[in-house]
């Protein structure tokens, strides 16, 4: 177990190192430099002074080492576009917003998906099953930004029930989090359905039934507890999909979260913000995936950690 944890942690650190390095060299591969790209008519002396100030005149390997140091100490440098603002400040202001939005979507997606999956497994090959699976396949097929636009059009513009955009009051969370939750909901529903179907045909379910236990107790206590494992495995990819979803959803709804800051920094070619946000996202995602991996053993004691991967 300990060996497994150490191995997984090392693996995550290697992945992170690769992302940080790749981001750095990718951004350096862009022609020109952040300062002259922004202002064409800047005098040569001032340009040189600014490049010196930001350390952009140093040789590449020095810049690289400095960047690695700044990532380790979590001091991601200044924004080139918004003068006087640091990347840390942008992350600190944007992330809490995105976190609330993302967690709401995650809760809606997982709980909605579980309910849909259970209902359709209990009514296998009957009407509720078909309905639920049609909902699921539509959830997978309709891109989240289109769903967002649709929700906005119907519930905000046409019906006027909910605010069109912006952030602050609780009812402004509803539409964006629904748009974000659709894809996870659909995936969780399909996963839950297939693993519930598998579990429901096990002998211990028959035993429980023959003992006269109520269907609701069997479903929750016997079946769901075993069927939920694949869903937990899926939390990692789920987090990835919600996170990348925030790029477009926050743009559509004008939410001042990290996703829209990231998109803005791309539009402005604000390289330190792009790099810093990308590194932050990677730390977050690799952390989530690592936690999920490590939690298997606690949730399902049948899983033995070993070095050989079965596939």
């Amino acid at each position, binding site marked *: 177990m300990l060996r497994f944890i150490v191995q997984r942690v090392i*693996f*995550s650190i*290697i*992945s992170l190192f*690769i*992302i940080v390095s*790749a*981001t750095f060299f*990718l*951004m350096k*591969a*862009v022609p020109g430099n952040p300062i002259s790209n922004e202002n064409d008519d800047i005098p040569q002396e001032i340009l040189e002074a600014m490049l010196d100030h930001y350390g952009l005149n140093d040789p590449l390997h020095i810049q690289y080492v400095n960047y690695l140091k700044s990532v380790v100490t979590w001091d991601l440098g200044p924004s080139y576009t918004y003068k006087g603002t640091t990347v840390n400040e942008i992350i600190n202001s944007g992330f809490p917003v995105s976190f609330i939005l993302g967690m709401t979507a995650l809760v809606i997606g997982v709980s909605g998906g579980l309910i849909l999956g259970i209902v359709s497994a209990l009514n296998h090959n009957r009407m509720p099953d078909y309905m639920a699976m049609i909902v699921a*396949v*539509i959830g*997978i*097929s*309709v*891109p989240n*930004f*289109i769903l967002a*636009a*649709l929700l*906005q*059009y119907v519930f905000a*513009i046409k019906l006027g029930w909910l605010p069109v955009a912006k952030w602050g009051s609780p009812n402004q969370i509803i539409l964006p989090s629904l748009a974000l939750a659709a894809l996870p909901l659909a995936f969780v529903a399909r996963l839950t359905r297939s693993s519930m179907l598998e579990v429901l045909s096990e002998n211990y379910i028959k035993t429980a039934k023959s003992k006269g236990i109520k269907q609701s107790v069997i479903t929750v206590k016997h079946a769901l507890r075993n069927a939920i494992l694949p869903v937990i495995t899926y939390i990692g990819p789920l987090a*990835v999909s919600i*996170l*990348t979803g925030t*790029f*477009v959803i926050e*743009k*559509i709804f004008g939410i001042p979260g990290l996703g829209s800051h990231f*998109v803005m920094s*791309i*539009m402005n*070619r604000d390289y330190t913000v*792009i790099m810093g946000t*990308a590194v932050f*996202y*990677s730390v977050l*995602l*690799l952390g989530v*995936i690592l936690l999920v991996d490590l939690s298997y053993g606690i949730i399902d004691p049948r899983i033995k950690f070993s070095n050989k991967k079965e*596939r």
Partner: protein
Amino acid sequence: MKQQLSEEMFRPVDKDVARHDEVADAEPSLSFWQDAWRRLKQNKLAMAGFWAIILLIIMSIVGPWINEFTYEQQNLVMKNMGPSAEHWFGTDSFGRDLFTRTWYGARISLFIGITAALIDLIIGVIWGGIAGYYGGKVDEFMMRFCDILYGLPYMLVVVLLMVVLGQGIFTIIIAMTITGWVGMARIVRGEVLRLKEQEYVLASQSLGAKTSRVLFKHLIPNALGPILVTLTLTIPNAIFTEAFLSFLGLGVQAPIASWGTMTNDGLESLRYYPWLLFFPATFISITMLAFNVLGDGLRDALDPRLRK
């Protein structure tokens, strides 16, 4: 009773006739693919997806030529018109015909989706095939490489690559395939690992077949089912990624239209001219739906473990 013996009765029977006699009542035997096709045909949803895809491909080829407008032809007098007899899907804010642009966008979106999926397929099959076939250290090394790429958040990598590579159809395809092939490689490797233990592979090897022959004649064709399913499910993902990038303003550049850029344009005037969003959005959704149900249907039809 005395029977008349003739010389004819002692002639050897034709080979084909003999076999025909034996199984006269049986159905003609089906190959694996015929069997799968037969099962796929029973799945109405998957077949609807299949025909929808065929129709979309045909329309993406002929659609832009059906009426007299071109996709970049502007007519500022006729801007933001609703659907009418002249402009079947209406016009956009530059007075461009939306019908022509929708099918022109289909061409771009489908081209990007299918090309990216095919490149993933080629790299994935070669990489996964070699890793699975040789096993051991080679496999360990190749798959560790895959694991690391697989651990990177896909959309984030694609977005970063697009920032560096710049906008354009081919840069999108490059950005998507740099890490996109890993999924296919993992599937192919799993299949090859399973298949290489089969007796027919041993027979082929002991008859002196070269590695490339064993790989491409025996292993890959037998792994074709899961490969095909993965391919079908990769295409909608690639179409979605392209639309996502174009929506963020990182995709194809004007005047070229894709469904993603059209959705982005449409969103800005959603309140007043909803059809600008409606048509591209509907067709992206239909396309992704069609590929998804076809992929699901193919998986059911090709996977003998799911047979009832």
